[in-house]
């Protein structure tokens, strides 16, 4: 295995209390290595989405710090659980939206949007409206929109959570292929242990009430192909993730 990449993001002892007194995060610490995929997994209310939003600048910690390599926030792009496409715009013009808002000239943004649509296997669907696409296709359009700005950091908030299992696995493989091609740092929030183990070079396990990091594993699979999901070593990783989650629950009950 290669030497560990330097961290792009360093989360140190981060706490976040909302205005209504909810403690979304308390003392969460983790490193996000540059150019790798980090998965944040945990049950609802463990603060994983809040942490992701902080990495993208959509939220700020009430205590602790989120630091970036070089001091400046990297160019980040989000994809959310819902595709969030503008229903009146064609797919290609939806994908080009971030470039349009940044003032990129029309011809260039079209070309870039069509190139990335091709990469997510939506080359023929550019002129369609979002309502004419399937759920999986809409999600791919949403991923394409996030990638069109060629971000250094891709933040995914349960991106495939609303899709059926088969579509979801296909999109996980697509995401791995895109990551292999573009090499950006990816942080993906998921509540699926299988997805976390499959995607993550580093899997961070979180627990709720208050949200915190309870462990971290680094599955060292030689390759990630669909066949990996059936191997004993993959089963071992998901088992250790499950165990971490179960232990955090027990500890929680013991404390109460």
């Amino acid at each position, binding site marked *: 295995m290669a030497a560990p990449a330097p961290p792009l993001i360093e989360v140190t002892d981060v706490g976040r209390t909302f205005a209504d007194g909810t403690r979304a995060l308390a003392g969460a610490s983790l490193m996000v290595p540059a150019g790798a995929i980090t998965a944040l997994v945990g049950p609802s209310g463990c603060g994983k989405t809040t942490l992701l939003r902080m990495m993208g600048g959509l939220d700020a910690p009430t205590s602790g710090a989120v630091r970036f390599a070089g001091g400046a926030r990297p160019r980040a792009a989000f994809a959310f659980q819902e595709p969030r496409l503008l229903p009146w715009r064609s797919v290609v013009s939806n994908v080009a939206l971030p470039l349009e808002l*940044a003032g990129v000239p029309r011809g260039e943004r079209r070309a870039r949007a069509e190139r990335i649509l091709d990469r997510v296997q939506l080359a023929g669907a550019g002129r369609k409206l979002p309502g004419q696409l399937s759920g999986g296709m809409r999600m791919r359009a949403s991923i394409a929109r996030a990638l069109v700005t060629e971000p250094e950091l891709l933040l995914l908030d349960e991106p495939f959570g609303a899709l059926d299992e088969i579509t979801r696995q296909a999109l996980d493989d697509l995401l791995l292929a895109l990551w292999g091609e573009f090499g950006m740092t990816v942080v993906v929030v998921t509540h699926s242990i299988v997805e976390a183990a499959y995607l993550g070079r580093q899997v961070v396990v979180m627990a709720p009430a208050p949200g915190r990091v309870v462990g971290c594993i680094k599955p060292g699979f030689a390759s990630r192909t669909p066949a990996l999901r059936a191997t004993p070593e993959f089963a071992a990783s998901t088992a250790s993730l499950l165990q971490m989650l179960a232990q955090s629950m027990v500890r929680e009950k013991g404390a109460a």
Partner: protein
Amino acid sequence: MIARLLRAALPPAIVVIALVAAWDIAVRLMQPSEYLVPAPLAVARAFLEQRAELVPAALRTAGSAAAGFAIAAAAGVLAGSVLAASRFLMRGLYPLATLLQMVPLVAIAPILVIWCGYGPRTSVASAAIVSVFPVLAATLDGMRSTDPGLAELFGVCRASRLQRWWKLELPWALPSIVTGLRIAAGLSVIGAIVGEFVGAFAGDASPIGIIILSAMRENRTDLVFASVALAAAAGFALFGLVSLLGWALLRRWHASAG
């Protein structure tokens, strides 16, 4: 497309024909004085005899209504957008706008005459005033219902306030705005005629409101009926035009929903 239009137009056409037939039969049976209820044929005859005067009059009224409607559409969308952009302004101004809406148009019409003078300007102002509120309310409601997820997306992309308005809030509110515009189109003809009742003068360029008043004074109920029908037709035409425009604007919305 044409077959669908015909199918849509057939039931109301049958109802209208049936109503006119019932009216004709009732007049023949009960024989009221021509002054109270003229027969349909008498109304048609009055229209044909006076058409050289009636049609230009209706066009003048429709012109005032359309001008008032255009002003109301622009002002309503603009004011609705401003109110939607600022919670403070909305809290401060929206109750006031609602209150103004409650003031009867007929009561303020004389004030309009004082400000705008006798002539079509009063009709235009009256039409604009009565149709601005539905547009404002529809714009405000539509924009305030903007999907928070999409608003967040625009935030992530660092969209400017103007980009957010033009590329997100305005298109998002469009179905609601079109509904407001259709209501306003119907109201604008009413507003124009109220304006004419108080602020227009009889003469070579009489609008339909003046024809109605003078026909009434001359006991020409048939002519009153013909004028009213024409005014209704003008309102219907304006409503139809706005509906057509709305349909064209919303095509992408419908395609996406389907």
